[in-house]
């Protein structure tokens, strides 16, 4: 557990929770990123503006952080674009079919003690653990 960063994890997590709570309290909406993104892309949806506003706010966070000395580092990703593409398709399709992702189910839904969200979170945690176990320990990537 040498890589454990409890303090920044707690501060960052509290901010994520604060953002979800404020969005619910001030606009009555659920801060599920896959839902917000999906609604932006769905043809014929009539409420794209607030979704875009939320997503732009998210992208502005790292840009504003550079003003206080944060380095915008490209994240470590698999070298294969095929793997990245397949993973993206699974994340997009799966989150829409399952009705949410780590934020919508994992935070907002679990906070409401929704049985659907608790189930979804348990399932995606389990398959993600299996996927990581497979790629890191069986394929040895």
């Amino acid at each position: 557990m040498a890589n454990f960063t409890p303090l920044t994890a707690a501060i960052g997590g509290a901010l994520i929770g604060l953002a979800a709570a404020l969005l619910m309290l001030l606009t009555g909406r659920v801060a599920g990123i896959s839902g917000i993104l999906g609604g932006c892309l769905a043809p014929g949806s009539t409420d794209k503006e607030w979704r875009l506003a939320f997503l732009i706010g998210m992208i502005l966070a790292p840009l504003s952080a550079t003003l206080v000395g944060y380095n915008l580092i490209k994240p470590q990703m698999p070298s294969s674009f095929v793997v990245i593409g397949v993973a993206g398709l699974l994340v997009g399709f799966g989150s829409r079919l399952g009705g949410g992702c780590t934020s919508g189910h994992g935070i907002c839904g679990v906070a409401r003690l929704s049985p659907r969200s608790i189930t979804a979170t348990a399932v995606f945690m389990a398959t993600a653990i299996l996927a990581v176990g497979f790629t890191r320990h069986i394929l040895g990537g």
Partner: protein
Amino acid sequence: MLLLVNSACGFIFGWGLLISGMVKPEKVLDFLDIFGIWDPSLGVVMAAALAVSSAGFWFAAHRQPPPAPQPGSTKRSIDGPLVVGSALFGVGWGLVGLCPGPAIVNLATLSPQVIVFVVAVGGGMALHNAWQRRQLPEPSKSVPTAMDG
């Protein structure tokens, strides 16, 4: 004005992902890697987020007048699509260590890998919408944009 509120919420959410380190795929994968050198950080992020958001949601549910019922929080049963969709989502998440939130924040780095990932996520969502339209009877061609979150 309301748009500004939404942007501010997105901004705070983005800072949370940044400070917590969850924008780094390797940190997410180290949490999911229970067979390796386990990093519990993501668990702390979720616990802290849940503590704050559940307090906020409690206030939202108990204030007067009660908030208008939200689209999407109506579905109650645990069904096949919920389980299959979440299972597929988890596999994709575990393959690269990015879920939609951190992927959006990482767009700011202009990493080609992140851009490809986000485009593929959009493609997967479009694929789902097209598939669901084929399943629905003729009169209701609109796809619900958010069921739970």
